[in-house]
């Protein structure tokens, strides 16, 4: 496998019983690149993420990370190599204060290996990362139990957990869903910063406006099949996309505002 791409998803398929969730999807992700994956509900986006991160084993196809076959590896091995993800259905540790939610990530073998055992105070590092994702440091917010935090904060907590892992690839599974407009607007620069730091990002998103602001490379799924790939303009003008995803041309124009 060529090694110029960081993450290669090659012809991956998965079916649950009679339902084909993902059907022969192929794409490549380079270092520092952002790929947006869009598609209607049930088009197999989250399943694709679960396959890449090892939670689901694909029926067919292979996944390569830095030239190494990672198909069928357990999730913790894949994360250990440098692929971090957020969950669409948020999975915080509800009983713990927000900043303690990052401790398992900071305690992971990957991070301990990368920092060579000299992390200092994990709580302090956790607090820095939380500030990075928009938790007000001097307020009580980072100390509140996760169960008392609003949904938007929990979404960003998921992002913080990814950043704590110092990953090379971050997969964001509908990070913006459930966030308020203000929260989305303040989160976009965080993702742009990660991109500029050279982290490759896969973004699954329904908010096209913000997605197109971050990336110029979009992939469209429908019924588990990749129906288009390219720049936002190319994709939005592809007839299959208009028909399958956006329904009609008028709606498409409204959505992307052109």
């Amino acid at each position, binding site marked *: 496998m060529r090694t110029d791409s960081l993450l290669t998803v090659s012809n991956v398929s998965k079916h649950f019983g009679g339902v084909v969730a993902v059907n022969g999807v192929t794409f490549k992700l380079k270092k520092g690149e952002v790929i947006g994956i869009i598609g209607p509900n049930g088009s197999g986006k989250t399943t694709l993420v679960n396959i890449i991160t090892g*939670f689901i084993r694909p029926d067919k196809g292979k996944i390569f990370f830095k030239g190494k076959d990672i198909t069928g590896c357990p999730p913790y*091995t894949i*994360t250990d190599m440098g692929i971090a993800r957020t969950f669409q259905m948020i*999975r915080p540790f509800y009983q713990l204060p927000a900043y*303690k939610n990052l401790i*398992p990530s900071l305690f*992971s073998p990957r991070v301990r290996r990368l920092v060579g055992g000299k992390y200092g105070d994990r709580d302090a590092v956790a607090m820095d990362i939380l500030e990075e994702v928009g938790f007000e440091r001097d307020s009580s917010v980072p100390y509140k139990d996760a169960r008392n935090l609003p949904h938007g904060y929990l979404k960003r907590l998921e992002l913080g*957990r990814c950043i704590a892992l110092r990953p090379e690839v971050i997969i964001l599974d509908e990070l913006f869903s459930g966030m308020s407009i203000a929260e989305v607007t303040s989160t976009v620069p965080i993702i742009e910063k990660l991109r500029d730091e050279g982290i490759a990002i896969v973004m699954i998103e329904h908010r096209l406006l913000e997605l197109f602001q971050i990336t110029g490379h979009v992939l469209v799924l429908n019924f588990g099949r990749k129906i288009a790939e390219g720049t936002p303009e190319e994709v939005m003008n592809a007839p299959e996309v208009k028909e399958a995803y956006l329904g009609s041309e008028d709606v498409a124009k409204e959505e992307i505002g052109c």
Partner: protein
Amino acid sequence: MTKRKERIDRGIKVRSDGIYALNSYREILYLAFPRLLPVVGLLAVVPFFSLYWQEVIASTAIYALLAVSWELLYMTGLISLGQSLFYGVGAYIAGALNASWGFPIYLTVPIATVGGGLLCALMLLPVLRLRGIYFAMVTLVLPLMFSRLVEATRILGGTNGLTGIDSFPNHWISFCLIQIALLVAFFGFRRLEGSDYGLVIKGINDNDRAIMSSGINIYWYKTQVLFLAGAVGCFAGAYGAHHDMFAGMPGFALDYSILPIAAAAVGGMGSFAGPLLGAFILVPLSEILRALGALRIVFYGLFLVFAVVGLPEGLFHFIRRKYEQIERWVEVDK
């Protein structure tokens, strides 16, 4: 005008658990008192009891060890219905090493503790992927299986068990060993719980997928926890074998599985102090109730029901709340 109960934390806690600002000896005492209570109680007060009650406390400590070990598994999300597996394995290893091969006590107990822990972790390794009730079922079956295996194959003394095991040189060594072991296990586990390691194992219970996505091998952590819990349980077994000078099928009996769970239920799950407290209530209580003869189990059962219904959070959490919070009734107008 209605009234509402207001609860205020005593002002000693700063922001999060484990960080305290201490300004006076009174506050130090406030913190130290509950922590010193078990140490002073077990090592300084109990030795003045009658010999009979000292023996009761020693056997309580065995159950308390199993209960603390149960709590560690429970924290990790592994529900064990078979603590007797640990007890039996520990007892048989120590017994066989001593009675059949003549190993001295100072070797048999450590070997049974570490080796038994490894063995138990190894036996439960194949079912580590199971959670909740499925894992519980396997732990319930294993000790029953073992006792039938011993019965059918007549290994390890068969139904007669292993006799002629050395006892401890004297009563005080025996007594100190079990009390100190209990304190070490209790405070050691508490320390572990408070560390980042403890955060991870509690995270496995809460939300194992998130832990996996943090790049942590949850099965490796569960194995470590099984070893730790198993070693503590096996120590209790090894101690029991030398204490009773007998190791046999009763080691795999349900008593050793159910009592630790009852102790955790009465004392309060979610902390190590709860099961400890529970064990120190239930075992002596069952001794006191001996005076009632055949009705003992009835009253014992009634107590269990009332304790669990009356204080579902557990006695320890109730006491702790009263200790750490100031409660007062305040008026609220609608």
